[in-house]
């Protein structure tokens, strides 16, 4: 009586960084395990949908404060993980949450000023070629 099974599209390998050797077993399972072991759905974990901060996979997240008791376990884990700067992609892998759910969580934390996000250097932010040439010529003139 159930509809035909969906054939899962395997995510391309560059999306998800390979887990580190000491990845805990909870994070190794992937979505299937997470679905089987946890009754909570993602919309409860990721909180209210709505405005998300402009976060990239490689945006670095640093904790600014210890976890207050009011945050959810995921956010507390995120704050503990982010004592050292971690990228959103890594956090997503550790907490076994999809990227969009991570951005929603991190947005809440940014709003509460519990973490700080450092934007990655994207291509557009690089100095343009004329600037680099000008620097080069200026250095040569010294």
């Amino acid at each position, binding site marked *: 009586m159930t509809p035909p099974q969906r054939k899962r599209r395997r995510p391309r390998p560059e999306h998800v960084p390979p887990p580190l050797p000491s990845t805990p077993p909870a994070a190794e399972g992937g979505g299937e395990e997470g679905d089987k072991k946890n009754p909570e759905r993602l919309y409860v974990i990721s909180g209210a949908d709505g405005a998300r901060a402009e976060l990239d996979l490689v945006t670095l997240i640093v904790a600014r404060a210890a976890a207050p008791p009011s945050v959810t376990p995921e956010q507390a884990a995120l704050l503990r993980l982010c004592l*050292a700067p971690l990228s959103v992609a890594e956090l997503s892998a550790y907490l076994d949450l*999809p990227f969009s759910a991570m951005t929603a969580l991190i947005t809440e934390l940014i709003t509460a000023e519990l973490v700080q996000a450092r934007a990655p250097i994207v291509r557009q932010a690089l100095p343009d070629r004329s600037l680099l040439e000008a620097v080069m010529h200026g250095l040569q003139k010294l």
Partner: protein
Amino acid sequence: MVSVQSPPDGRELSLARVLLLPAILMAAVTAAAVVLVAGPARTAVGVCGTVGTLLVLATAAEAVRRGRGLRDARAEHARHRAYLEQRLATSDEEIDRLGQEVFPTALYRLKAGESPKEVVRQVFEVDPRMRHAPESQRRLIRIMLDIVDEEDLQRDSLERSFVSIARRVQAIVHQQAHELREMEEDHGRNPEVFDDLLRIDHGTALIGRLADSVSVLGGGRPGRQWPNPVALYSVLRGAMSRILEYRRIELHSICQVNIKGTSVEPVIHAAAELLDNATRYSPPSTKVHVTAVEVQSGVCIEIEDAGVILNEEARDRLEGLLEKAKQGKDIQVLSENPRVGLSVVGRLCRTYNMDVSLRASAYGGVRAVLIVPSDMMTTDPAPGIAHGIGATGIPKPELGALEGPKRPPKKRRPTSPRIPAGISMEDDVPEVTEWTAGGLPQRRSRMKTPLSRRLAEQAAIDRAEREGNPTIWSQHKEPEPAQPEPERREPGLWVEAFWEGLKKNNPGVHPTDFTRNPTKYLHLINDPAGTEADDEGDLK
């Protein structure tokens, strides 16, 4: 009535006596008349007197005979009446026993699972008092049992069909939830698609809860099985994820216990129904507060809303509803009862030995207390996202991660869901606005300086330049072509000058002798390693 008991002989005797007196009197009168009248009339008078006496005698005899018949008929009637009264009493007694003993026994046996035929046999042949019961009684009981049995079968099959339909819906919902989770991970990088998927996921969970409710009302299990223990926090969030307004639920202090895998689903479902009631019957702007504490008999989950005040009457009604639900007798009142959730909770409590009670809340609404018995809890660790990840998921510093800055922890609370305007997520990107005279880009600090001050500073610099002592800010005003053309030297030539200077006061081997004849230095390579290398050898 009295005549029945009076001795018949005395009455008969007195009757004879009463009838004998007129006969004797008649005979005496006749004899006197015969003696008194003259000769010719004597015969006629004698004959008449004799006839009259005979008639009186005959009348008396007839009267006695009839009286006897009447008496017999009356006695017969009394006997008959007594018999009938006895029959009536017996029949009353039988009907009484039928209603008070036989019917309940038969129904009890039927409910216990015996077939109607078997029940009739047991009732009428095993019980010695009923062995000679009339056929009509047997037929009555048989018909009643048949009807009851048929009704039971119909209800059973109806419930079974409900449950089986609910099972199919549950199966579809589970598969859909599973696939939605996969899709959420596959499309997790696209926020629009992700949010849409979350909406569908939420709707699917609502359908799943309805299917579970139908299944529970039909006497089935609430839903899927969980293979592993689940933390209570996850269980309550699982309950949250099955109701419409999960955003209004606030989990406050949830004790850290784990629920057994087999008991996870009933707790989730009962909590979800209570949470749904709480959000449904309270104003949309209020929050529903959930706490869970460990008590002697298990875990006590309290759900408080700020809805309508629960007075004694309403509380009695709801408690009565719960009681009925616990006994499984509320299938008739379900149709007019909007709070189907309480029936489901009552049934779950009966099946799984939980306990639920409703009290008035301190917030003005209802406080539902769900007690999960301790045999549903376990001490096994619960693998999950909510707990444990923070303890084990931190990358070790030896993996190459840099130690983070040791900042003192700050206490801050979330204020509003919007990102304040003051928070910037941009790094400082160098903005080039000015160029030095040498052609190098110059970077101005972002410090805002008022234009008047800047003009004043520029004027001061100009004045200093005119006076002949240039400041560090003054720019070279000499036109470049006026300068003598600097000596064009190849970029690497200073190295040679450096070496020349080094050679000047340094007798011995030429510093670059190694590159000039490298074969002289081969012994340095071929020699065995020094003591420093020995330390590393130990590692192997």
